[in-house]
């Protein structure tokens, strides 16, 4: 069964360093998302992406964050200068239908630890 894959599964980085989290969405999906979950807390929307551009972003998704679909298969989240509070599980998701009209398929997540 097709699945969303994410790498790395866990990354430890020093505060101020740049981090790139990678995702391979399901191949026929058109809509892509990043969510994050701070340990034990709710799953928070970061950004949605369609047709090679951001379609919606949350207030969390500030200038330190960027997304890219560099080669038609990968979908990346970059955090330019990490802060301690960026420590969280980051989930990539993709869907066939727009936004919340249908099922989102999530990856297993990338755990980011900022020291």
């Amino acid at each position, binding site marked *: 069964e097709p699945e969303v894959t994410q790498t790395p599964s866990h990354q430890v980085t020093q505060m101020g360093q740049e981090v790139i989290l990678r995702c391979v969405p399901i191949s026929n999906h058109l809509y892509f998302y990043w969510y994050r979950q701070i340990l034990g807390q*709710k799953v928070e929307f970061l950004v949605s992406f369609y047709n090679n551009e951001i379609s919606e972003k949350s207030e969390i998704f500030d200038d330190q964050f960027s997304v890219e679909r560099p080669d038609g298969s990968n979908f990346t989240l970059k955090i330019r200068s990490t802060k301690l509070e960026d420590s969280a599980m980051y989930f990539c998701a993709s869907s066939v239908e727009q936004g919340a009209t249908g099922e989102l398929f999530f990856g*297993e997540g990338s755990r980011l630890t900022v020291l």
Partner: protein
Amino acid sequence: SQQGEEDPQALSIQEGENATMNCSYKTSINNLQWYRQNSGRGLVHLILIRSNEREKHSGRLRVTLDTSKKSSSLLITASRAADTASYFCATDAVQGGSEKLVFGKGTKLTVNP
């Protein structure tokens, strides 16, 4: 803001019992979805119910939706230890052209063998 809130925050039951989790939300929706998350893993879609539906079944899952009360419930019948997980409701937004799915805080279900 558009958000689902689950209740209770945590639920512990014995295998074979039924588990009921509730979700309340604030504004009008097109649909409401339930997801499951095993500890440290990704979210898995369970069921979607549209605003014009009142009840939906999928295996041992039963979801109800009451748009007048802005609430939904997820019932898991004849629970198993493998049902131990966190369960989240997620809602869309009708107004403003928002595309995002907004998740609640989740109910942590423990099914004891």
